[in-house]
Structure formats: C-alpha cells, structure tokens
C-alpha cells in the first residue's frame, strides 16, 4: 500500500473529527491543497502522523483557532493583480454610484489587504461615505489581524507599485503611517468596514450586496462547494450586482454560474442576471 493512501485515511479521519467535534466541515475542500495544509499543520504541532494531530485537537479544543488558521493560510497583498483594481475603478464603481447606499461584501478577507485596497478605491471615487463594506472570514486569527490593519513595511513598496499600476492617483503612503518595520492603515479607512466571522461552507445570506469580491478563495473548494458558494453569492446580490473572483478561477463546472454574465473575462468580473 502507498504511504499516501494511509495518509489519505488519516486526513479523512482528521476532517471527520473537526466536523463531529467542532462543526467545521472541510470535507468539500479541494483535496490536493488541503492535504498540503494538513501536513504542514501536523509538522507545526510536532505530530509524526496526521492521526496524532486529530487526537491532539480533539483533546485540546483551545488549539482550534490555530488549527483553523493553519487550514486557511491567508496570503494576499494590497491591490494584488492591479488590472483588476483598475477594472473595478473604471467599470464597476461608476455604475455603483447610482445607488444611494452601496453594500460591498468581501468574502474571505484574510489579513485585510484587499479590503483596505477597496476602501481606498471607494474614497478616491467619492463613494466611501455611502458605502458599507462587510469583510468576512471564518478564520478569527486572521480577522483580528485584518481589523488591526497593520502590515509589514517590507511589503509597502510592492503595495505602492500595485496601487499605481491599478490606477491610483495619489501616493499610497497618504493612507498609512509607517512605524519601524510596520505600516498601519489610516483609521478613517475602517469607518465603513464591518469585520465579521462568516463561514462560506455553512453560513447563509446576511446582506443585499451590490458588489461581492471573493478572490482566490473558491480555488480551495471542490466543484460542489464552489457551486454552493456561487449560489450563496447569487442569492446575496441585487439584480445586476457585481461579482469579482480571482483572475485564474474557473466556474464552468458550476450550475450556478449561469446566474452570472461575464463583463470582464480577464479580471473575472461578472454581473448577476435576473433569476
């Protein structure tokens, strides 16, 4: 028997344990990337086998936040894929301007780099004061970090370049304070952001959104869960509302994809069709 098959059994047991004991369901995550993350987690917790990891978490529930954080490994940067932010700036925001109030949901906000990018876009479009941004994630450790809005100063150069390439008209440093090796985003960017725990796997519609941004989150889900979440997005969006996903994501295997019409294929920006 391949060692990998034994490992597959252990991963199944681990996933089952998280579901039974804590209600966290990873069974519809894409297997290949989940496996890598579970392995890393086992190493981080100094477990020789993944079955040891399962036992450790079952008997030490205080470890759960770190386990969840390890299984979600949020990686992003401000204005990642600048052309996407340019498209949001030029194509989407001018159309949202016609609404008296604008609700935006960023699903899977991780450490918050994108939600602050979005806040900056809205400020520069003069729409921030009548916008409300819901930044959600199921990883409480990441949410707390996102709320702080503190990032490593070594990344500021990249963020600034992305901002300029994404059509930024000022200097990104206008929006943060640099202290030693950190930058802290301006408090005023947070005024219209609500950070909240929401799990795309099991939580339901909570707002009527005009724009949903969920980039590089669905890549971790299998077809079934991807479809489930696209349905959730469809139900959450106003008619004609916008959805922006990661620019290498593929939704062709989801039945709910027919609810969406691509308006920018390169940037993966869609509009919700009338039901």
């Amino acid at each position, binding site marked *: 028997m391949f060692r990998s098959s034994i490992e597959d059994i252990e991963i199944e047991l681990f996933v089952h344990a998280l579901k039974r004991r804590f209600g966290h369901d990873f069974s519809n995550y894409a297997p290949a*990337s989940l496996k890598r993350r579970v392995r890393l987690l086992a190493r981080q917790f100094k477990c020789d086998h993944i079955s040891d990891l399962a036992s450790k978490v079952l008997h030490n529930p205080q470890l759960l936040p770190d386990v969840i954080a390890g299984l979600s490994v949020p990686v992003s940067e401000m204005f990642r894929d600048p052309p996407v932010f340019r498209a949001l700036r030029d194509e989407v925001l001018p159309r949202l301007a016609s609404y008296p109030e604008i609700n935006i949901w960023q699903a899977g906000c991780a450490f918050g780099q994108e939600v602050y990018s979005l806040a900056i876009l809205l400020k520069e479009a003069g729409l921030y004061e009548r916008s409300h941004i819901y930044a959600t994630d199921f990883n409480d450790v990441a949410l707390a970090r996102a709320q702080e809005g503190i990032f490593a100063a070594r990344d500021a150069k990249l963020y600034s370049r992305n901002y300029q390439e994404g059509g930024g008209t000022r200097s990104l440093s206008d929006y943060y304070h640099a202290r030693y090796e950190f930058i802290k985003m301006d408090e005023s960017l947070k005024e219209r952001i609500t950070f909240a725990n929401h799990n795309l796997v099991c939580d339901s519609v909570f707002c009527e959104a005009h724009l949903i941004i969920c980039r590089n989150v669905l890549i971790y889900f299998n*077809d079934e869960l991807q479809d489930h979440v696209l349905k959730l997005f469809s139900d959450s969006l106003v008619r004609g509302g916008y959805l922006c996903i990661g620019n290498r994501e593929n939704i062709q295997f989801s039945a709910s994809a027919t609810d969406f019409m691509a308006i920018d294929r390169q940037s993966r920006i869609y509009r919700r069709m009338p039901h």
Partner: protein
Amino acid sequence: MDSPRPTCIVIGASAGGIGALRILLSRMDPRLCAMIVIVSHTGSTDMRNFCDVLAEQSALPIEEACERTRPQPGHVYVAPSGYHLLFEPDGRFGFSVDSKIGFSRPSIDVLFESAAEAFGPTLAAIVLTGANSDGAAGLLRVRELGGLAIVQDPDDAEIDTMPRAALELAGADHCLDLRSMATLVNSLCGPRDESEDPLR
C-alpha cells in the same frame, strides 16, 4: 516486469529554463501519448507570452493550465504565474495561492508531489536547469511512489544547481542531456504501436 508507460510528464525548470524547454519540446514526437505539465520560474506575470515563445518551436499545442480542467494527452500545459499548480486525485488541475516555497510560486515541489500522488508509477518527472533546489523534494516523492525520475545532466545544464540538488536528494533513473532526454521521452511515450508509425 516492465515499468508502466508514463501517462503524465511533469517538468520543472528555473534559470535558463526557457532555452532548455525550447530544445526539449522542439524534439518531442507530435504524436506523444502523454500530457506534459511545466512549472517554470520566471519574472513574468503573464505566462501566456511564455507559452507563445515555446509554441514557436514545438509541434505540440501549448497553453496555460486552466483551473479545474482535465489535461489532455499530447498537450503541454504551463503553470500560471503567482499560483501553485497541483494535480487533484481525480487528475484535474487545482490551484492554490499558499505561501511561496523557497521563494517560488508556482513551486516545482508542489506540482511534483501532487502529481506523484495522483499518478504513482505512471508519472515521469524531469528536473532541468536552475539556480535553486526546487524540485528535489518533489522528485524524491515521485520516486517513492514508483514514478520515473529524469534529471538534466549537470554538465549539459546552463545552471547546474537545480539538477545537482535533485540528484543529491532524490537520485535519478536517468541523467541525460536534452537531446537524449527527448529521445527517451519519445520512446517511452510515443505512439504505442511501432508498426503504425508512418515514418518507418
């Protein structure tokens, strides 16, 4: 017993990789029965240009790998920039934006390890020129699960660090220059029945 014919060939290339890939792909039999999947570290943010450059020399169709799709035999796929490319157990492509591994995303190790687990003994993995050690751990996994390991002869490589690292950690079934490597791949994965070969 003969080892099974590879149905999938994964290739890792880094510094100097584009030249090596052009030579290798230009010599591939256009009737190849295996799929080829490439991770190449480049500074480029859009690998579609990279595909076009490779396609100039190759009779095989070359495209950027697309999330969730199933790669086809006789086609060449290149990992997009900024994403790890993985094989799901069902043989389809999966993507991730997990942390860089050894400063790289895509990482050769990530592709090789997931491909090893999806294909086992019907995988062949090739490590080409490069200035880091990505691919060594992945190649070891390929061998553990019965796949075939091919490494570019360090003396033939533009930068020998990556082939040497792979040989040191994983060893190889074949250590060859690019021309011999193309001949080997064609003999392993070419048309099944030699008598049907119209060139004979």
